[in-house]
């Protein structure tokens, strides 16, 4: 007999006892908690898949630029097309296979051909050449808009590397629009454990190191357990779900104070 049958049995057999009511209520609360956990997890997974799709989309658009061996006219055309068609890409640099910047284009500025800039020792060149793709740390322009450098190497070595400066405010929109109860919140930490997206712009800008926060430690220790109860730094219990944003190795969290979740289940 499973629990539901047991309760039904109880309900049928001993209707007169108040225990029926209590048991039914306990069951209902269990079910509600299960639903809450599921909903938290779904929210985290959904947001992370939206973000992954966004980043994959950018990668495929940038990838077009390095398909062919170097030709200035072709690159100029592809670059301009990319800038006009992809709102999130603000700037695009084309590096040759020696790491020299051959062309820099921007939505806002004049094209700069053959700048004397040598990027052959920069991670955006070396990492992209070694691993095909490089995701830089999240940084802020004008203290307000989140950006990331994304560099992609061509399929052939002579394709060089395309470096895009990508505006990530779409991710901030995704995070800020997640609503969980009154005090629930969603946020993202990067591979180093720094807070990179949070609805509160001040917290986001501060890029707090959260690598030792219990929810981050727990998520890293047991990636397959998507929902956990952890204590935050103030000792308050939280119900936390997480999902990985695979490509840049970020972790997305959705959390709600446990007492709020419990009060809602009462």
């Amino acid at each position, binding site marked *: 007999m499973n629990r539901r049958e047991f309760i039904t049995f109880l309900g049928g057999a001993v209707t007169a006892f108040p225990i029926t009511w209590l048991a039914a209520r306990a069951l209902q609360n269990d079910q*509600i908690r299960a*639903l*809450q956990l599921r*909903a*938290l997890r*779904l*929210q985290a997974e*959904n*947001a992370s898949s*939206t973000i992954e799709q966004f980043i994959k989309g950018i990668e495929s658009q940038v990838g077009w630029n390095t398909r062919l061996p170097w030709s200035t*006219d072709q690159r*100029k*055309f592809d670059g*301009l*097309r990319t*800038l*006009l*068609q992809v*709102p*999130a890409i*603000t700037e695009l640099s084309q590096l040759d296979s020696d790491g020299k910047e051959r062309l820099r284009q*921007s*939505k*806002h*500025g*004049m*094209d700069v051909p053959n700048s004397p800039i040598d990027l052959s020792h920069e991670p955006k060149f070396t990492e992209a050449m070694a691993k095909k793709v490089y995701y830089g740390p999240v940084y*802020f322009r*004008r*203290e*307000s*808009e989140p950006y990331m450098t994304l560099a992609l190497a061509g399929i052939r070595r002579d394709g060089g590397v395309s470096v895009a400066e990508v*505006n990530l*405010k779409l991710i901030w*929109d*995704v995070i*800020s*629009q*997640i*609503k*969980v*109860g*009154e005090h629930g919140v969603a946020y993202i930490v990067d591979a180093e454990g720094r807070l990179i997206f949070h609805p*509160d*712009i*001040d917290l986001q*800008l501060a890029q707090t190191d959260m690598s030792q926060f219990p929810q981050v430690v727990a998520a890293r220790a047991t990636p397959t357990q998507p929902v956990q109860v952890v204590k935050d730094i103030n000792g308050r219990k939280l119900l936390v779900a997480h999902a990985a944003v695979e490509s840049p190795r970020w972790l997305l969290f959705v959390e709600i104070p446990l007492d709020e979740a419990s009060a*809602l*289940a*009462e």
Partner: protein
Amino acid sequence: MRRREFIAGLGGSVAWPLAARAQQGDRMRRIGMLRPFDENDPVAKSQLSAFAQALAGFGWTDGRNVRMDLRWAGGDINRIRALAQELVGLQPDIIMTNTTPAAVALRRETQTIPIVFVGVNDPVASGLVARLDRPSGNITGFALVEASLGGKWLGLLSEIAPGLKRAAIMFNPDAGTVSTYMPSFEAAARSLKVEPIVAPVRSDAEIETTIITLGREPGGGLVVMPDIFTPAHRAPIISAAARNNLPAVYSLSVFARDGGLLSYGADLVDTWRRAVTYVDRILRGAKPGDLPVQFPTKFEMVVNLKTAKALGLTIPPNLLAVADEVIE
């Protein structure tokens, strides 16, 4: 919030992006709209319909749970001030507006009613917000300031007008936006070996004189700034440029659609659409001061081939291939 609402809320918001999240059965919200230009302006119309459509996407439908109070100023600064006062008097839940003078006029009238602006060149310089990341007052929105655009426009002009020797930057000095774009315009002029000419205009007559002078010798070109004056006076600018054989680059697409040679700039219809994300959040209780000022991400290029042909210019095929719109 009751349990049922919590679960419904969770369930509903799982499917991001959200189609319809506005609370049903709430009181009617009021959105005031201060539009600086003319009601019959096709640009203003398309912005407004993009806005209303995006708003409906968030569950806010005009006449059902929101009401829009629109005021049109017809490009008249004094009227903008009077209408700002009138709109604030209606005590709406939020006011939307565009252009610097309209945002400044509203800000002067109210320190409490939330204001969302679009199409403001430089919100810090014009005193609307203290900081971009945390505007901290009752106002936030979508700015245009990309100081380097001055160079971008001149770069484009040099690509479509071979043999460019002199380029004028045309603006209304009372609108106060040119200083933002001037340094990059001048830097581009130096690198392109083009003589930069500063061309302030306050009237149709001054527009005419400036363009005649520029067109007198070959090698002249024109870049027209985005401000509250130039779009309202686009007809005389476009016609003078045509009569004097002067290639010109504009920042707003409406110029190219009306016969200007080429436009490049932020897609304002897209910006109006994006502004709805802030309107929605503020209607749900967010404070404007907590929402950072955003910048345009979508840019558009419109090329008028008819005008190019009349000027005897060949637009590089690369530019034509990527233009969002080509007018033939």
